[in-house]
């Protein structure tokens, strides 16, 4: 009988000191590791990038492998806002409201050319990139991006989540950055 082993990677433990029966590290790193592997994304899909995201969530690509099995369709429980598609100017206050309703800590992934920059829709009715209304952590280029690209963007977010200091969201710089977007 032919047996093949499926390669998989376990989550590496964070940097720290270990001795028999003992492992010491910083709280930031433990929390970061936990958060990174259980992100709840909120899919804000308005067009074709949303279709690519459906493939990303499907069995072939399976975003669940990265700990994001559970999509949150309520912003209250979501950690990651994934904006996929063209955002009209009329939609801009909606996307900002959704962002405000998310609890800290929260991250934003702009998927595709339209969410990142307006894409081909250089016109009076389309928002020229969601970073005009909410802070964006990672941009995924493509029109639309393939599921692999969305996964790569998601893994970049995971890196940021793992490295985030616990006090960052309380810092005056962070508050100031939010105020720059008109978010109190």
């Amino acid at each position, binding site marked *: 009988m032919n047996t093949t082993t499926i390669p998989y990677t376990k989550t590496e433990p964070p940097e720290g000191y270990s001795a028999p029966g003992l492992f010491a590290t910083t709280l930031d790193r433990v929390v970061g590791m936990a958060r990174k592997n259980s992100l709840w994304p909120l899919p804000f899909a308005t067009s074709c990038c949303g279709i690519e995201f459906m493939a990303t969530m499907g069995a072939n690509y399976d975003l669940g492998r990265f700990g994001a099995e559970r999509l949150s369709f309520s912003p209250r429980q979501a950690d990651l806002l994934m904006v996929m598609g063209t955002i009209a*100017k*009329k939609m801009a206050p909606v996307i900002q409201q959704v962002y405000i309703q998310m609890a800290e800590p929260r991250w934003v992934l702009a998927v595709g050319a339209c969410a990142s*920059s*307006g894409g081909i829709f*250089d*016109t*009076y*009715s*389309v928002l*020229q990139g969601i970073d005009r209304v909410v802070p964006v952590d990672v941009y995924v280029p493509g029109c639309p991006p393939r599921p692999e690209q969305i996964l790569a963007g998601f893994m970049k977010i995971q890196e940021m989540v793992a490295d985030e200091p616990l006090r960052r969201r309380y810092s005056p710089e962070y508050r100031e950055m939010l105020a720059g977007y008109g978010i109190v």
Partner: protein
Amino acid sequence: MDNVYITDRLKKTFTHDILETDAGGDMLTVIVTAPVIAEVIRFLKEEPDLGFVFLTDLCGIHYPDRGLPLGVVYHLHNLGENIRIRVKTFVTLADPRVPSVTGLFSTANWMERETYDFYGILFEGHPNLKRILNVEYLDFFPLRKEYPLEDPTREDKQDRHFGR
């Protein structure tokens, strides 16, 4: 009922307000002066022998080179005999007022709002003439030719990115 009959009926009633008729092309086209447009459409709808009871479309157009640059185009349909007619009227940019046909066709309500939204044509007698598709804070009428189509705040198309 044919195009000649409809043209005669209109010309007999509205005489000098019928500026132009064209029976060539896909359907009869009539150009009338702006103040009588609602009356012409009422006539076409309510005269029993004409019977254009369905307003298929109402839209605006801008010809920047003409003396009367802003236009409104009405498409009417006689459902019983399957005859269509196109009625146009033109106004100036300085005074873009056209009587509303919302009293005749409820469907004209949103279509006139859309025409106002994109061309700034003021429909007199409209119950709720405000923007319908664009954002409320837009301070121009985007489909008029004097305004650029592109978003003026876009940064990645500046010449410096292309070595110009």
